[in-house]
Structure formats: structure tokens, C-alpha cells
């Protein structure tokens, strides 16, 4: 019988990517492909291998080792064996090798494979770095360049082959969940390379504007760049724009909403698949990139279906936003008064009982925004007093305060929380039109760094 005719008993889905060796033995035993005697032999050989690795680790200077380190060494050995065993055509073939080969030999071959993987991954990384898509998102470059460089620096396959050592902060669209060590990095780099290549079909500025549509501060947000770009380009195809444009507008979102309305996930997936075929043809994607794109479709179809169902397609198909085209007001904290004058005003405020008088003092004697923020915090004002002050200060200053206190996240100081809540109350008391104007004004305010 040839290999093709072989009956495959082992269910591959039951084999763990991270703990392949142990899961293979377990499956082998379950299907009686490995006898207890054979497993015992494998155990003894793995123990001998561990003793050998321990001696190497200790440079022959110590016969004992802390248990934690021994566990790491054992994990590394089993991982290395797993890498070798994964390379055989089927799990049954791998079990045959386990029966006939000494574990020492399989470990040696596994280590050789890992070293080869390191070389290939380094080449992949080098190519990725040469054509890394330029995005202002800091995590993209930090992980793709510095993080992976760090991995290669500290990765030690001989004694800790299963370690990753770094946190791959930047999330690729298709996650890498069931792999460790160099296998994780290899897969992560493959994913990143595909996503980077796809993003490179689009202009950097178009992607920048698209991501600003998600959040103007996307630079500091841990997000995947590929996903919104792919979805927006598919949206463009579906609304008869060029896929490269990424320039969806509200009208297009409306069209898309009609298109997806009442469709189940399979129907949505079919529409997206057709659009993707057109996009692949338009961009001239290579077959491996096309496969990666096609593998992304199911996940995307679910997001689109859910967004269409909840009437929020604009959260999935992003509408680009150009911050450069919008007014920007740079606000300075202003020239601060000297400590003596400030203390005098604060003392005066704490002495007076009338809310009106307090508001008068603040409006007449405080001239910089920095001093205003400080006095509002230091003067221990009640909500009514704060509201009284807000009524008396110019709208532009209110807008600046709204910008300064957009939400209560990261407000741990009680006095700042008091200002925030008073501001919310004040806003709610305003006519809607005025409130919206103030909120719009707040959006364009940017503070100068103090």
C-alpha cells in the first residue's frame, strides 16, 4: 500500500499546535498505534534527552537544576520534537517515526528544522522591513520592526525553543493562537507580510484619512490596519468606485445598507466574495495574497451582516476624514501668574461665601486658561458655584473646557471629576443648538504642549 491508500485514524483537529508531541502520543495511544511499552520507551528517552540538555545547560558544572528551569528545558525538548514530527506527511507517519527513530535523533532533526525556520523568518522579516507600509500607527512599526528584531536577538532554540519572548502587540487580522516559538513568529510574519502587501496597493494618505475616519488619534490605538482598508475597498467595489480609492461617503453607506438589508451571512459572504474577485483582478494580487484575502472573507461577512442588522454599517465601512481640511484651533495654556498672586486669589476665593462673588473673582482676575484650570481644581467649588462660573465665562472658554474634559476616563482627582460633572450639567441646560455648537468648536481645539 502506498501512503495515499493509508487509512488515517487520527483526527488532526485533536492535535495541538503548541503541544503537538504530547497530543500526538495521546492520539497514538487512543487509537492503539502506540503500545504502553513504546510510550514508556519514549518517556525514558525523553528523560535521557532532558538529562543531556540539563548537562549542556549547566556546562557540565552541576548535576541538579531548579525545577522551573528543568520544566522549561523539557518544554523546549517536546516543542522541538513537535516541530520535527509535524513535518511528516501525516500524524500516522509521525508515529511510525517515533516507533523507529531514537528521540535523540528526532530532537536533532527538529533543532535543525528550527534553525532553518529562523533563517527563513529572518529573510521574510528583512523583506518586510524593506517595504513596510508607512502608517502613523505606532504599534505597526514598533512590532513589525523593533519587536521582531528583539525576538531574533533573544531567541535561543537550544534551550527555550518554545519561547516567544516578545509581545507581538500589533494584531494581525488572522490571529496566531495555537503556535509557539519560531512557528508563531513564522506565521505572524507571513500574516503581516500579506497584510502589508495588501495595504501597499493603497496610497498612504488615503489609508491615513480612512483611519482618521475611525479615530483621529488612531496613531496611538492598538488596531489592525488591514481590516478597515480591505472592507473599505470592498465597499468601493460594491458601490461602483475603484477599489483603490477608499473614498466611501454617506450616500455609499446608504447604498450598502440597501444591498445588505435582510441578507443572511451566506448571502453577505457571497456578495463580498464577488466583490473580492473584482478587487483582486483590479489590484493584480498574487495567488498567495489572494488566498489570504479569501481566508479573511468569512470573518468580514459576519461583521458586515451584524453591522447591517444593527444599522451601523458606517462603523465597518469607514468614511474617510481629512483632519487637514478641517479648522484647527491651537490653544495655549497662557501666561501663568506668579505663585504669590495665585495664592492671594485662592485665599480670597476660599474666604468668600457668595457664589456670585467667586464667579466675579475668577472672571476678572484670572486671565490664562492654565490658571483657570488650576483655580477650578484648587478652590473647592460646589456644583452650583461651578455652574455660576460657567454662565459667566465666554463660550470659547467653555468649548476649551469641554475639550479638556471630554469624558471621565482617566479622571481620578475628585476636583476634576466635579468639574466634569458640572460641565455636563451645564451643557444639558443649554439649548441643543448651542450645545452642538460648543461641541463642534471643542473638536477643532488642540492644546499646545505645556
Amino acid at each position, binding site marked *: 500500500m502506498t501512503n495515499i491508500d493509508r487509512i488515517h485514524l487520527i483526527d488532526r483537529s485533536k492535535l495541538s499546535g503548541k503541544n503537538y508531541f*504530547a497530543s500526538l502520543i495521546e492520539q497514538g495511544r487512543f487509537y492503539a498505534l502506540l503500545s504502553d511499552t513504546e510510550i514508556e520507551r519514549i*518517556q525514558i528517552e525523553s528523560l535521557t534527552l532532558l538529562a543531556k540538555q540539563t548537562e549542556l545547560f549547566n556546562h557540565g558544572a552541576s*548535576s541538579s537544576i531548579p525545577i522551573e528551569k528543568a520544566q522549561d528545558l523539557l518544554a523546549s525538548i517536546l516543542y522541538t520534537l513537535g516541530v520535527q514530527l509535524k513535518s511528516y506527511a501525516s500524524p500516522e507517519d509521525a508515529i511510525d517515526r517515533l516507533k523507529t527513530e531514537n528521540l535523540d535523533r528526532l530532537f536533532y532533526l527538529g533543532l535543525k528544522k528550527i534553525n532553518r525556520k529562523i533563517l527563513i523568518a529572518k529573510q521574510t522579516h528583512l523583506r518586510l522591513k524593506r517595504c513596510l507600509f508607512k502608517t502613523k500607527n505606532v504599534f505597526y512599526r514598533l512590532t513589525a520592526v523593533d519587536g521582531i528584531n528583539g525576538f531574533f536577538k533573544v531567541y535561543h532554540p537550544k534551550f527555550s525553543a518554545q519561547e516567544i519572548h516578545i509581545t507581538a502587540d500589533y494584531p494581525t487580522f488572522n490571529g496566531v493562537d495555537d503556535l509557539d516559538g519560531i512557528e508563531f513568529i513564522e506565521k505572524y510574519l507571513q500574516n503581516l507580510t500579506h497584510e502589508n502587501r495588501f495595504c501597499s496597493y493603497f496610497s498612504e494618505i488615503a489609508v491615513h484619512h480612512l483611519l482618521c475616519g475611525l479615530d483621529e488619534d488612531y496613531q496611538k490605538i492598538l488596531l489592525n490596519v488591514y481590516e478597515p482598508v480591505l472592507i473599505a475597498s470592498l465597499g468601493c467595489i460594491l458601490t461602483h468606485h475603484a477599489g483603490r480609492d477608499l473614498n466611501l461617503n454617506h450616500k455609499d453607506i446608504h447604498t450598502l445598507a440597501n444591498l445588505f438589508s435582510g441578507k443572511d451571512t451566506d448571502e453577505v459572504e457571497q456578495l463580498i466574495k464577488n466583490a473580492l474577485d473584482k478587487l483582486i483582478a483590479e489590484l493584480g494580487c498574487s495567488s498567495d495574497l489572494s488566498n489570504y484575502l479569501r481566508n479573511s472573507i468569512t470573518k468580514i461577512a459576519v461583521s458586515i451582516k451584524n453591522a447591517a442588522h444593527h444599522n451601523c454599517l458606517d462603523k465597518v465601512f469607514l468614511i474617510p476624514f481629512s483632519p487637514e481640511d478641517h479648522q484647527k484651533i491651537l490653544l495655549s495654556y497662557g501666561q501663568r501668574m506668579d505663585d504669590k498672586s495665585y495664592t492671594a486669589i485662592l485665599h480670597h476665593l476660599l474666604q468668600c461665601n457668595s457664589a456670585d462673588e467667586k464667579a466675579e473673582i475668577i472672571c476678572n482676575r484670572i486671565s490664562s486658561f492654565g490658571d483657570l484650570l488650576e483655580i477650578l481644581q484648587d478652590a473647592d467649588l460646589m456644583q452650583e458655584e461651578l455652574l455660576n462660573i460657567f454662565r459667566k465665562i465666554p463660550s470659547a472658554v467653555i468649548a476649551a473646557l469641554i475639550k479638556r474634559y471630554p469624558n471621565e476616563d482617566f479622571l481620578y482627582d475628585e476636583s476634576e471629576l466635579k468639574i466634569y460633572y458640572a460641565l455636563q450639567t451645564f451643557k444639558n441646560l443649554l439649548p441643543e443648538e448651542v450645545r452642538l455648537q460648543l461641541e463642534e468648536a471643542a473638536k477643532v481645539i488642540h492644546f499646545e504642549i505645556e
Partner: protein
Amino acid sequence: MSFELELLNSNLIQKQAINEILKMNEKSAKYGLTLTEQQAIALVKTRSDSLKNAGRIEFNGGIIDKLILAFCDSPYITQENYEDSLHELVDIFYSFKNETIDRISDNDLIAFMQKSFNGTCCGSLELLSARELPTLARKLNCIHVTDLSEEIDDEY
């Protein structure tokens, strides 16, 4: 069957260790010191307990044979206190292996123990474990700290 460390550290190791200890009788006998199989088993048990207490693991016969070789010619060890002394020496050894954070090799630690025991300790295991070895551990730690501060100095 599992490939957990605890299971791998099985009877096999114990048997190997007992055989290695009994083999040492050939060398120690000329100093009038021998161990029975029961005593060897007890020593291996002490070794297991000491390793467990120290959070360590050992894969071959370990250091009992080395300790026998180093201490069997000591003027302070007789057949009467031979087994007890070995029990204590095993315990002291693993405890100080940790104290010195593996900065000293097995051979060097045993050589230091032997020299101190036969020399300044005049055969007192108490002095060895309460005075000589802590001093050694402190010295080794000082060397480490000095190295570290030199590294920091170099950086700035």
C-alpha cells in the same frame, strides 16, 4: 501517559542512584566505610527530599557518589557516623546550591565543603552549614553585586 516532569522523575532515577552509591563501597571500603543497600536507599530518599525542599531536580546518580569520594578519607568520619554524615551533607549541598544561585559548580562546592569540614570546622557539620557556607554564599553574592555595579558604571 504524561510527559510531566514529576512523572519523568521516576523510579528509574532512584534505582540508578542506588546502584551508583553501592558502587562507591569499593572505594570507601579502604577507609573502613561501607553502606548497605538499605542505607543507600535511605540516602537516595534524603536526596529526593532535599531536592524537593530546594525546588531542584537531578537526572543521574547525582552528587552522593561525589560526596562519598570527597569525604570518605576524612579523619572525622567513622563507620558509626558515616551514614548520618552523608544524610546531612546531601541536605547541606542542595540547600547551598540554591543559596549560591548556581554560581558555583558541584565540584567546587564539594571541594569547599571538604576543605572546611576537615579544616576550620574540625569535623563539625553544624559549623559547616551555619558559618562556612553562608560566608561563601555572601562572598559569591558580593562578587555578583560588584559585577553588577561595574556593569551599571560602564553603562553611564
